[in-house]
């Protein structure tokens, strides 16, 4: 578990510093660069080691003739997978915290009504206390397509705030040393 948190910390540190996570490998003829972000977008760049004219066919030949690439591929993919696993820890933790908050609030507000409802005594108060959740379950599939990406908004907001804070701290240091 400790290792997982360390992994998550390193992945987020990289995300904040460079705006994404990256893994690279070097074959005989080409470099492999995998770049990903928190939305799950992954870009794979294959770059020739020697500066050549921009000819796609020639790069393909370089890839075909590179004997070490298969081995490098497993290394780079494994490292990248670990970084992505680290990134998923924050949303998991957020939901865990949300779950606890929700439990506390719900128990505090409506537990009596819900108990009554489940014991078979139907009452307006019990139904009303279930209504928000019922409503949520009805609209979620309808909105799912549009919500999709917004699922990640809180995570982005946190990362963006940390990034801004770090920039402020970093800039202040530069200013002090100049002054």
């Amino acid at each position, binding site marked *: 578990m400790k290792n997982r948190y360390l992994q998550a910390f390193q992945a987020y540190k990289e995300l904040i*510093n*460079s*705006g*994404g996570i*990256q893994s690279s490998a070097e074959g005989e003829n080409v470099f*492999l*660069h995998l*770049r*990903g*972000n928190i939305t*799950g*977008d*992954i*870009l*794979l*760049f*294959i*770059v020739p080691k020697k500066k050549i004219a*921009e000819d*796609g*066919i020639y790069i*393909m030949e370089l*890839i*075909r003739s*590179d004997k070490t*690439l*298969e081995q490098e*591929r497993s290394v780079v*993919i494994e490292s*990248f*997978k670990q970084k*992505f*696993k680290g*990134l*998923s820890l924050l*949303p*998991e933790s957020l*939901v865990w915290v*949300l*779950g606890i908050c*929700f*439990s506390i609030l*719900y128990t505090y507000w409506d537990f009596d009504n*819900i*108990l009554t409802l*489940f014991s078979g005594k139907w009452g307006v108060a019990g139904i009303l206390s279930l209504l928000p*959740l019922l409503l949520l379950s009805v609209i979620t599939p309808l909105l*799912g397509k549009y919500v*999709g*990406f917004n*699922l*990640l*908004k809180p995570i*982005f907001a946190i990362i963006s705030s940390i990034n*801004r804070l770090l*920039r*402020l701290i*970093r*800039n202040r240091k530069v*200013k002090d040393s100049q002054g």
Partner: protein
Amino acid sequence: MSASKAPSGPRLLLHNLAGKYDQKLVSMGDKYRQYLGKSNQVNDENLFRGIRVNDGSGYESFKELSDRAKNAGLLLKASKERGIVHEGQIDADIMMLKRIETISNDVRRILIMDGVDPVKDDPVKKVTFNFDEKESIEKFRIMTSREADTYELNLDLRQLLVIKKANDIGTEKVVIQTVIGMDGDVTTRISKAFADQPVPFINAIHQDAIGISVEFWKTLINVVVKLGTHIIGLLNPKG
């Protein structure tokens, strides 16, 4: 591709992107000079990119890039029809020019939106700063974070990601691309050259990358499902 630290804000990302498009237009112009330079219709000086009016990364700069890419594309299409250049070679470059034109137009649409550009909306800043000029970008680059924030673009997440992705891909050739939608649609695009002569290694690593991305989303969805299960569990006193 060149590996470097990503620019820290939208303005600098845009400037980076404008630079990549500029360089690409220049290099493509150089590439086709031998075929098109002798034509009466074109001036072989700075072919495709033309004489630069805006060297920054504001609205007008992207308009210029978009116009130049559009004109260059038309020129290449005409050359293709006349059979001046080999078809296989020209198709990929026409696609690249189309990408430059489309993304530049997207950027322009974002920049013109109300509330996005604080310089556009402020009569004082408008006089002192013109992000269509390189000098303004250079001044902006060395500002303190606090000061730069007042000139920075106010983008929402979706707009920022459009710019980030455009900058990441830049002018690299895309040989294979898979897009998985939230509604389950999966679309894969493969370049003609790659489809004609596929490289197993690229297919394999592409599959690996898709696997990682899907796994990441699965984890995120599972997290939300867990929360839902937790809430439902609360409603069932026996559970």
